[in-house]
């Protein structure tokens, strides 16, 4: 039997494509990438990135000044778009501020503040500058704490940090904690911002591309690090709900390697199968799969095996990383909201930048945008440590499950 679905009552998104849903909607439709040659701080790396313009000029002030760092600036910028804060305030009046949970995914939180502080250490004592505030910037919880305070919510709040599956798993955690009665609605989000740790880290692992990333391309050679923030307000769906619903989630561990995906995609397949099982949906009912699709040779190959195992070669799939780059801990919510936009608009997005499909890969990869009504779509997010999460969304479906 299908699980009780959750409705996405409000959404907002900010990334390299711009501020707010409209910027992402327009860029997805027009096939315009937000990627640019790396111009982040003084990182002299030959790669492309997905940077959010203007964050440098948007410090947090007043009561929020202690939270000031790139990651929380990005969270604030995102929360200010699409009347998201206003919608949450109205929900807070209905549910009570202590009954809306906050579940925010992030991989590096505000580590950029610590990177900066280490460059300003006292030459004699080695101490960090007095202005450095670990708790409100670098600590993993900082962005969830900021979000909760910005929205005046007082209930359960956690930062979920499972690398690049973080904000996908935030949906699963929110479903569970709502079902368990710890909250009645949830703000689910993800925020990750550019920092030297991830840029140099992925570079050291040889995983960054010198060009705009090309998922599933025969010449793909790596990922582009991006930054982004997205939030959604989740509440239990009502019978006949015509909003986009979270119908199922699936999670698994690869138990294989810290950075390399299982070559057969065993864990990834398990996550997809569980998402379908929780929604009581058969693979051939799914209209679209938004791939994790980072464009590293091995990740795409492993995900391809997994998708083939679950769906076969005919289900349309694409990776939207060519628009935003890999927004790491924010990728799950970013792509969940991309899926929502696609379900609402009947858009089957292509795979930007990809020219020649890798003949060794068999999934039904779509290269060009197509207009087509969509009812059910799955989104994949995988990360270091072998963490996998798949989310199934639908619109105008499963009314029986809400009764």
């Amino acid at each position, binding site marked *: 039997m299908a699980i009780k679905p959750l409705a996405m009552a409000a959404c907002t998104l900010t990334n390299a494509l711009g501020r707010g849903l409209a910027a992402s909607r327009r860029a997805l439709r027009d096939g315009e990438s937000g990627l640019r040659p790396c111009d982040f701080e003084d990182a002299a790396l030959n790669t492309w990135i997905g940077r959010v313009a203007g964050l440098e000029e948007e410090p947090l002030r007043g009561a929020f000044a202690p939270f000031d760092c790139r990651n929380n600036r990005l969270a604030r910028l995102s929360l200010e778009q699409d009347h998201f804060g206003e919608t949450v305030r109205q929900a807070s009046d209905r549910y009570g501020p*202590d*009954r809306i949970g906050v579940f925010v995914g992030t*991989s*590096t939180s505000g*580590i950029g503040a*610590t*990177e900066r502080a*280490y*460059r300003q*250490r006292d030459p004699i004592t080695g*101490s*960090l500058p007095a202005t450095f*505030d*670990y*708790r409100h910037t*670098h*600590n*993993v*919880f900082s962005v*969830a*704490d900021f979000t909760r305070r910005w929205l005046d919510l*007082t*209930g*359960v*709040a*956690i*930062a*979920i*940090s*499972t*690398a690049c599956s973080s904000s996908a798993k935030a949906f699963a*955690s929110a479903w*569970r*904690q709502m*079902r*368990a*009665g*710890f909250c009645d609605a949830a703000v689910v989000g993800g925020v990750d911002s550019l920092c*030297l*740790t991830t840029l*140099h*880290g*992925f*570079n*050291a*692992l040889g995983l960054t591309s010198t060009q705009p990333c090309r998922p599933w391309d025969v010449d793909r050679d790596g990922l582009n690090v991006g930054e982004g923030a997205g939030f959604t307000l989740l509440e239990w769906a009502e019978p006949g709900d015509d909003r986009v619903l979270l119908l199922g989630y699936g*999670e*698994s*561990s*690869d*138990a294989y*390697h*810290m950075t390399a995906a299982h070559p057969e995609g065993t*864990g990834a397949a*398990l996550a997809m199968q569980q998402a379908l099982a929780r929604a009581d949906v058969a693979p051939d009912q799914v209209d679209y799969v938004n791939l994790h699709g980072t464009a590293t040779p091995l990740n795409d190959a492993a995900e391809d095996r997994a998708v083939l195992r679950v769906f076969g070669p005919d289900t349309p799939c694409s990776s939207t990383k060519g628009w935003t780059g890999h927004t790491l801990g924010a990728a799950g919510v970013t792509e969940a909201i991309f899926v929502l936009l696609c379900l609402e608009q009947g858009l089957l997005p292509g795979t930007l930048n990809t020219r020649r499909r890798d003949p060794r890969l068999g999934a039904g990869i779509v290269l060009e945008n197509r207009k087509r009504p969509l009812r059910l779509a799955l989104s994949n997010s995988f*990360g*270091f*440590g*072998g*963490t996998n999460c798949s989310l199934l969304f639908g619109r105008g479906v499963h009314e029986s499950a809400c009764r």
Partner: protein
Amino acid sequence: MNPLAVEAVGLMAPGLAGWSASQAVLTGQRPYVAEPMPATMATLLPANERRRVTATIKLALHVAQEAMAQAALTPDPAPSNGRGELSVRTVFASSGGDSEILDKICVALTQPDRPVSPTHFHQSVHNTPAGYWAIATGCMEPSLSLSAYDGSLVAGLREAAALAWTDQARVLLVVYDPPMPFPLAERRQIVAPFGVALLLNPAATASRLALLRLESGASEQAADRLEDEGLERLRAGNPAARGLPLLCAIARRAAGRVILSAGADVALRVEVEP
């Protein structure tokens, strides 16, 4: 609210070297003494991985392994891959994760050409212990890693309870925090390493150590403090140790109620019965 059985506990901190060895201190028969912590080994890990892991990863894996062994869920070594199947969902909670690794990366970023070690980079993710635990045990079950700063233990307990109830499955909760290295320690004081693992079961099994009932909202009351001064210093000095009042209640094997700190000004009430 539904009950949750505690089937086994793993524990490691200075002066608290394992669950059974800590009974006298936790039940108040012996005062707490912060004896040096024995080395943790993470013996489940394959040798090549064991060489590369940090003290923090070993601490998390050690308490996880102790809890599983106590519940006699030790993996049978499988000859094919040298490790067994150990099927349990996991929740890992830590305020700051592996600060030793984060310090090394931030130091590398101040040097010419910024030589960030690839190993340090992949170990810098908050779910590193979860990843190694899965590799060590061969377990492909879901796992979540989270932080709620000083409320991380309570946040982990809530997530583990929700996971156990909704999936009707056992969940291993692992909560750990190491002391921060200098210079981060100047901004975040964690007085000693502390790791605890609770094997939780949504069914009230007969072999349980205790049965817990979690309050759904925040408690109006202030968090419990401990009578033993040393133990209280540990509770207040490490976010993972905020669960000590609960561990004491479980060790006493008597019905009671504890109020656990869930952060700066919030708390969680837990009813405990044998």
